[in-house]
C-alpha cells in the first residue's frame, strides 16, 4: 500500500466546522425544498448510499490498509438483514432493524476478515472475493432470506420512525441524509481516536505497530467489523431508501468495484474523499449521458452513445489518476490553498 497522507486539516481561512455546518444547513434546510424528484431519486439517494459505503471501505482500505473486494456483499447482508429483522420481529422499530442489520454485516465482516490475519495486499483482496460470491450465493440459494419471494426480489417496507413517514422522495432523502451524517461524524471521531491511529499504524508498518504495542490482530478485525457495519447500513439505504426493491444480483462484484473506485478516485484515507468519489461516480456518467444525448442524440442511437460514454469516462479516470494520484480530495485541498493565497495577497 502506498503511503497516504491522513485526513490532515487543509489550511483554510475558515475553521472546518463552519464549512461542515454550512453544508449540513444547505443539505437539510435548502435542498429538501428546492430539489426535484429526479435530483433525489436519481442523484442524491444513490450518492448518499454509495458515499456511506465509501466511508466504510475507506476505514478498512484507506486507514487500516486492508484491501477488500467484498463491499457489495456486506451491503447485501445489511439490506437483507434489515428486511428480515423488520419482517420477522414484530414491533421492532425500523431504526433498531437497521442497527441490527449493521451488526449482522459486522459479524459477516469479521468472518471474512479472518484471512487478513495471514494474508496481505492482493492475496487478501482475492480472499475477500469469497465473501462476494458466498453471500450472493447464499441469498439466492435460500429462499428464506427473501421471504420465499418467487423472483428473489424483496420489497422495502415503508420508512417510518416513531409514526412519522418518510415515503416521499424528499423524505427518503432526509432519512438517508440523517443516517449518513450521524455515521460520518462517528467515523470522524473514530479516526481521530487511538483506534484510528492504530489503524494507520497497522497500515503503514505492521511490524513497527506490533513493537509499539498495537494489538495488530484485534485492530485488523475491528477494522473489518466497523467497516462492514457502515457498509451494511449503506446497503440498507441502497435497498430501502433508494431502489425500494432489491435482488441479490443487485449487489454483485461490479458494485464492489464501484465502491473501491470511489475511494481510490476520491482519495484514500480521507472521509471527504468518499463523498467526492461517490459524487463523481454517480453524477459524472449521468452528466456525460445527458450531454451526449443532447449533442449527438439525433445522429447515433442510445447504444452507441452509451458505449462512447464509457470510453470517455474510462479515459478521464485514467487521465485524472495520472495527474492526481492522491485523488479528488488532494485536488480540492490544493485549490482551496491556492484560492486562500490569492485572497490572502489581495
Amino acid at each position, binding site marked *: 500500500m502506498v503511503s497516504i497522507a491522513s485526513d490532515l486539516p487543509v489550511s483554510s481561512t475558515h475553521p472546518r466546522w463552519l464549512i461542515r455546518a454550512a453544508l449540513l444547513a444547505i443539505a437539510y434546510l435548502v435542498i429538501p425544498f428546492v430539489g*426535484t*424528484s*429526479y*435530483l433525489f*431519486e*436519481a*442523484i442524491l439517494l*444513490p450518492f448518499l448510499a454509495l458515499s456511506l459505503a465509501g466511508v466504510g471501505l475507506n476505514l478498512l482500505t484507506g486507514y487500516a490498509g486492508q484491501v477488500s473486494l467484498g463491499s457489495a456483499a456486506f451491503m447485501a447482508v445489511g439490506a437483507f438483514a434489515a428486511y428480515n429483522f423488520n419482517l420477522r420481529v414484530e414491533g421492532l422499530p425500523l431504526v433498531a432493524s437497521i442497527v441490527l442489520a449493521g451488526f449482522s454485516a459486522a459479524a459477516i465482516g469479521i468472518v471474512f476478515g479472518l484471512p487478513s490475519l495471514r494474508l496481505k495486499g492482493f492475496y487478501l483482496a482475492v480472499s475477500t472475493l469469497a465473501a462476494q460470491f458466498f453471500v450472493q450465493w447464499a441469498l*439466492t440459494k435460500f429462499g428464506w432470506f427473501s421471504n420465499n419471494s*418467487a*423472483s*428473489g*426480489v424483496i*420489497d422495502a417496507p415503508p420508512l417510518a420512525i416513531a409514526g412519522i413517514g418518510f415515503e416521499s422522495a424528499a423524505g427518503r432523502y432526509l432519512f438517508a441524509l440523517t443516517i449518513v451524517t450521524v455515521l460520518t461524524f462517528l467515523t470522524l471521531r473514530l479516526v481521530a481516536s487511538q483506534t484510528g491511529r492504530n489503524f494507520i499504524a497497522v497500515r503503514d508498518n505492521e511490524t513497527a505497530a506490533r513493537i509499539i504495542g498495537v494489538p495488530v490482530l484485534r485492530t485488523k478485525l475491528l477494522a473489518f467489523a466497523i467497516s462492514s457495519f457502515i457498509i451494511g447500513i449503506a446497503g440498507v439505504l441502497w435497498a430501502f431508501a*433508494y*431502489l*425500494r*426493491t432489491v*435482488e441479490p*444480483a*443487485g449487489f454483485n462484484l461490479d458494485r464492489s468495484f464501484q465502491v473501491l473506485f470511489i475511494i481510490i478516485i476520491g482519495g484514500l484515507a480521507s472521509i471527504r474523499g468518499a463523498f467526492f468519489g461517490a459524487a463523481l461516480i454517480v453524477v459524472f456518467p*449521468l*452528466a456525460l*449521458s*445527458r*450531454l451526449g*444525448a*443532447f449533442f449527438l*442524440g*439525433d445522429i447515433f*442511437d*442510445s*447504444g*452507441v*452513445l*452509451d*458505449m462512447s460514454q464509457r470510453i470517455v469516462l474510462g479515459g478521464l479516470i485514467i487521465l485524472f489518476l495520472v495527474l492526481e494520484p492522491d485523488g479528488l480530495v488532494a485536488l480540492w485541498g490544493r485549490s482551496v490553498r491556492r484560492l486562500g493565497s490569492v485572497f490572502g495577497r489581495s
Partner: protein
Amino acid sequence: MTMLSKFKIAALAAGVALTIALPAAHADEQYFPLQSYRVGPYAAGGTGFFGGFIDYLNLVNTRDGGVNGVKLTWSEAETQYEVERGVEAYERLKSNPNVAAWNPLSVGIAYAMIDRITADKVPLITINHGRTDSTDGRVFPYVFPLLLNPYSETSGIVNYIASKEGGLESLKGKKIVVLYHGSPYGKETIPIYELLAEKYGFELQQIEVPHPGNEQQSQWLTIRRAKPDYVVLRGWGVMNPVALKTAAKTGFPVDHIIGNVWSNSEEDVIPAGDAAKGYTAITTQASGTEYPVVKEIVSTLYDKGQGNLEDKNRIGSVYHNLGIVNGILNVEAIRIAQEKFGKRTLTGDEVRWGFEHLQLDPARVEALGAKNLFHSINVTWDNHEGNGYVTFQQWDGKKWNVVSDWIAPDWALLRPIIEKSSGAYAAEKGIKLRTAEDAEAATN
C-alpha cells in the same frame, strides 16, 4: 428525440438545473418513455424489441398521422437491463408531458417501478414477462403483463410436452429439468413448475444458471447425470446459445429442449449453429415478414431509410415482431381509450382504462394486418394478462417453423394461484381490492 426533451437537456447542459420539467406545450401528442437497452449482454433483445416498437409507432405516425390525429412521440434512455439505470431513466423520462405507458422490458426494473407508477397513475406494460400476480387487476391497477404471464407460459410448455408424450396422464413418471436464468425473471416460475410437477406427477429438477450465463458446463453435466426426458430452457440473452452448444457437447438431444418465450429468437439459435437445429420454443407471435403489418413497415419505413433496425436481416425476427405486437397493443389501448374520453391527448389513467378494455378478437387482429402474427387478446379490469394464445416453433437451421396450433394455457388452473399471491401482496402492502366500479372511473 422530442423537441421537449431536447430543450430540457439544453437546460441541463447550461448547468441551470438537473431537471426542470417544461410545462406541457403540445396539445395532441402522446409520449412513450422508452427505457431501452442497446448495449450489454441483452442488447439483442433490446434492439429488436425496441426497434419493432419504434417502427410501429413510426408507422402509425407516417401512415395515419398518429392515432386519430394524436401524434405519437418517444425518447430513449439506455438501461443496460440494470435496475439502477432503469430507475434513473424512469426519473429522467417521467418529467416529459403526456406519458402514455411504460415498457421497460425488464422484470427487475418493472419490480422497482410498481410503487412509483402506481403513485403516478400511469400503466406499466410487461409483455410476455413481469410479475405474474400483477395479472390480478384488483390489486395491481396499473401493471399489465400482456399476452402471456410467466405462469401461463409454464402451463403452455407443460401442456405442449404432454401433447408430445400423448396427454397429461403420460407426464406421470417423466423427468423434466428447468434450466433458468439467475435473475428475478428466471426465478419467477419456480413455484409454478413445482406445483405442476406435483399435480401431473412428473419428476422435476430446477437448475440455476448465474447471470449472464456464458458458462454452463457444470449445469449440463448435472443434466447428463439426471437423464431427463425434457429440458426447459428458461434463458435470456447469451445464456441461450451457450446452453444449446453445451447441450450438444454433453450429448443431450436438442429436440428434447423446449425454449421459453425469452429463449425463442433468432439471436438465441444462430450463434449456436448446428447445435440449435431441431430446437423448439414457445412464442406468442410468429416470426417472418409475410404479415401485412410487417410488409407495411418495410415499404413505409425501411425502403425510405427510416427503419429503426440497423441490420435489415432482422426485420421480422422474433424480437422485432414482438416489438411490433407490443406497439399494436399500446396503440390500440390508446385508440380504445380515445373512443371513451375523446380524440385528444390522454392521461396515464385514461390509457390504463384503454388497456383494461383492450379486446382484440382475431377479426380485429386481421384488420390490423397481424393475422397469424399473434392470435388475440382480451384484457379486462381484473385480468391484466388478456388470455394470450401460444404456439410452438422449431428451428430448422435457417428459420423458425410453426409446429403447433394456437394453444390456450390452462388459465382456470392458474387464476386461484395468482389470486393467492396477489392477495398476500395486498395484505402485506395494505391495499384495498379494487372493484369494477373503481376501474371504470379514470382521472384526467
